């Protein structure tokens, strides 16, 4: 870092206006709270506390989207899927790259002001790639969780670390890949490690000092309600990680978090009981971390159906009554509507083929129909959808999500012995193929050639009507998609996919309005922002962050 400083000094002279603009900008809590009122910025992981990924910007429209052109690109220096979601504050973009770099970037040119590099401990363990999904900002600080389960606060002006706390023990498989959530004076994160037998939790720190404010374990300890949904000492290493950023309802003062799979992943017989709060959403008091309610999507899960999807908060009439709702397309293949005040189950409908369950009872509890050994289970191990952020447009009233259709897995279970810091999986799985041994869908694209084809699963953007749970329209892709969604006040929907196409669709009809081939898989959601009166859309494809704007 030290050697960089003369360069930074020169840079700050050259780009003086932006730096001074930035210095004046403090991202107060009130600004984060009112993020929807300043759509020129993208202030949280999902844009606003309600996580709708809906922007009020409307300069780019269905009529002129054809005029989008490349404005700038930023090349990642590190190989591997780039899943980071940028934050944009007053012309400065904060984005992370593997494994734990943070960059402050001029959002107009893509040139970098500063770079902070944290090298995670060699003992850090992650199941599925050295991912980091972005930062949070509050006041003059930027916050990043690390692969070795630290939380680091940086000075937003120069990237210097201000505090660094250990959130979990990396030797036991704890890690952080999610972007933190800031609420009031606290910064809140969850931990990954569901494949390593961790005991998951959500933890809040004082944003100024890094002092721990509260901690909520996603597996209840002895004497706590729900502990009896575990047997023996299974709770000590039962997983239930929290690896995707939650949402916040300021009126209710509740934060909402999706909880991941129980461990070992595939051998549910080994951990009898519902295994609370794995595969559930938990509603936690933002000040104390106290549990207000929970809803479990997949009790005693044997399919790795992490419920780490983004809790999308929407207000609309439900049966004629104005309601505070939570919309949730779950990895288990069902689309849920919950009352986010009470956690009450309102509806649940399959949005892809489901055969692990024959339906939901009146309380939303699935009726299990486990398939015989060697038979395929729909949806497959990566689920009907996964962590990719969906979008809800209050203008169209539709919920948009990347779905994996016709994708199935054959599960195998086996007894696993927990060993600290080691993989704790309880078996394995095989993706169903038309030909034995044929290439199949994995966690990401590893080749520019699609050698698995659409027959083992295809991607689709679904526009779900929350009232019926049915798709109003569907946009199919040949390959599956891990891309999130972005909608705008001009009724555009932006999304990508593994094929590397960046799509602009009509959010009302699903009609394809514009596309660009960016050359490599898109595994994050687009964002939009405005600078100097110009609206921009940014998306990451492969190792490149690409920013589009309208032709001058």
């Amino acid at each position, binding site marked *: 870092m030290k050697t960089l400083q003369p360069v930074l000094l020169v840079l700050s002279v050259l780009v003086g206006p932006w730096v001074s603009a930035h210095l004046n900008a403090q991202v107060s809590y009130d600004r984060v709270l009112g993020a929807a009122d300043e759509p020129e910025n993208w202030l949280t992981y999902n844009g606003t506390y309600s996580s709708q990924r809906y922007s009020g910007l409307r300069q780019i429209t269905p009529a002129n989207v054809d005029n989008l052109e490349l404005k700038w690109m930023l090349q990642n220096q590190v190989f591997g899927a780039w899943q980071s979601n940028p934050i944009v504050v007053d012309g400065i973009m904060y984005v992370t790259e593997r494994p734990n770099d943070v960059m402050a970037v001029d959002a107009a040119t893509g040139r970098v002001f500063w770079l902070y590099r944290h090298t995670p401990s060699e003992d850090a363990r992650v199941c599925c790639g050295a991912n980091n999904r972005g930062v949070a900002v509050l006041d003059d600080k930027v916050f990043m969780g690390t692969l070795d389960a630290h939380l680091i606060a940086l000075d937003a002006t120069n990237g210097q670390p201000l505090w660094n706390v250990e959130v979990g023990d990396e030797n036991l498989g704890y890690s952080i890949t999610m972007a933190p959530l800031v609420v009031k004076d606290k910064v809140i994160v969850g931990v990954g490690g569901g494949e390593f037998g961790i005991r998951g939790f959500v933890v809040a720190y004082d944003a100024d000092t890094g002092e721990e404010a509260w901690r909520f374990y996603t597996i209840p300890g002895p004497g706590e309600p729900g502990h009896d949904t575990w047997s023996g000492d299974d709770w000590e290493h039962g997983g239930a990680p929290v690896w995707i950023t939650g949402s916040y309802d300021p009126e209710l003062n509740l934060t909402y978090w999706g909880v991941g799979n129980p461990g070992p992943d595939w051998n549910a017989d080994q951990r009898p009981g519902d295994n609370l709060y794995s595969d559930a959403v938990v509603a936690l008091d933002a000040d104390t971390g106290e549990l207000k309610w929970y809803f479990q999507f997949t009790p005693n899960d044997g399919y790795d159906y992490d419920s780490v999807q983004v809790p999308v908060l929407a207000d609309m009439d439900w049966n004629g009554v104005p309601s505070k709702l939570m919309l949730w397309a779950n990895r288990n293949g069902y689309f849920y509507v919950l009352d986010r005040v009470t956690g009450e189950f309102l509806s649940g409908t399959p949005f892809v083929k489901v055969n692990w369950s024959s339906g939901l009872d009146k309380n939303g509890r699935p009726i299990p129909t486990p398939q015989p050994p060697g038979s395929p289970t729909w949806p497959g191990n990566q689920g009907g959808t996964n962590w990719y952020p969906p979008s809800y447009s209050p203008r169209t009233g539709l919920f948009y999500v990347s779905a994996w259709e016709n994708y199935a897995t054959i599960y195998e279970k086996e007894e696993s012995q927990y060993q600290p810091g080691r993989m704790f999986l309880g078996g394995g799985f095989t993706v169903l193929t*038309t*030909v*034995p*041994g*044929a*290439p199949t869908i994995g966690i990401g694209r590893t080749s*520019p*050639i*699609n*050698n*698995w*084809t*659409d*027959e*083992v699963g295809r991607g689709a953007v679904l526009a779900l009507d929350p009232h019926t749970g049915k798709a109003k*329209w*569907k*946009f*199919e*892709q*040949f*390959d599956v998609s891990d891309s999130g969604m972005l909608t705008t006040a001009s009724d555009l929907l932006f999304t990508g*996919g593994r*094929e590397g*196409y960046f799509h602009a669709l009509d959010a009302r009809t*699903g*009609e*394809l309005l514009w*596309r660009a081939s960016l050359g490599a898989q898109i595994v994050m959601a687009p964002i939009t922002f405005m600078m100097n009166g110009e609206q921009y859309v940014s998306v990451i494809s492969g190792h490149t962050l690409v920013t589009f704007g309208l032709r001058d």
Partner: protein
Amino acid sequence: MRVMVSKIRHRIPSFISLSVFLLSAFALLLTTTEQSSAQSSDADHQYTSEDIEAGSRVYVAECALCHQRNGNGVDGVDLRLGQFRRPLSDNDLREVITTGISNGRMPGLDLRQDELDGIVAYIRAGFDPSGVAVKVGDSGRGQMLFEGEGQCSTCHRVNGRGPYLAPDLSDIGAIRTPAALQRTLLEPSSALLPINRPVRAVTQDGQTIRGRRLNEDTYTVQLIDSEERLLSLIKSDLVEYEVSETPTMEPTTLSSDEVADLIGYLLTLGGLR
């Protein structure tokens, strides 16, 4: 969206022509399978599980001291993975086991025929008692069949010789197990990788393009056509587009010994290092 709809719509009329094609292909298949039904079941082409089981006991008693339980105790040889210092047919293996290797590095073993067959079966099954042990014959005869009676070289290319129509097999021995090769020969439709499927496209000017799929996405498809040209087609520009699940290749009519020879030859194809 529009592309997918049009793809489905165009598939419907083409089904008719496809089914005509399939019917004639099926008729052809019927005659050939009748001729070859005596040899076409997998069982004739592989060793029995009893062979493998017996072989495992002989192996542990006679071979594992040097080759180790997992088969990789000798430098340059991995019996479990079928990696030898030179390509070996089953008969070659029997001979090596019986006579040993010169200068006494490996002694010859005096075994009964069933014990000998058992060890070969155990090796061919990848040391897996429930595995499939495919018979591997003589690679020289296999090459003659490949280029002659088997008619493989009318479509497949090897080491720079032959057409580009079907996948190039120059490295097939390094990337396929004997069991997978056998399955491809006996029942191509169950082994053809979906990406390699034959495609048929009709352009707006009425030109029909047939070829082998190389890559595909939502809007485009890349293929090598019957003229051996690399083509990239935009699906929305096509009047018809279909991907056939029926491979161009038909089940082999060769005898089980000939199939074993052919597999022996294919296993020698290791590609360029």
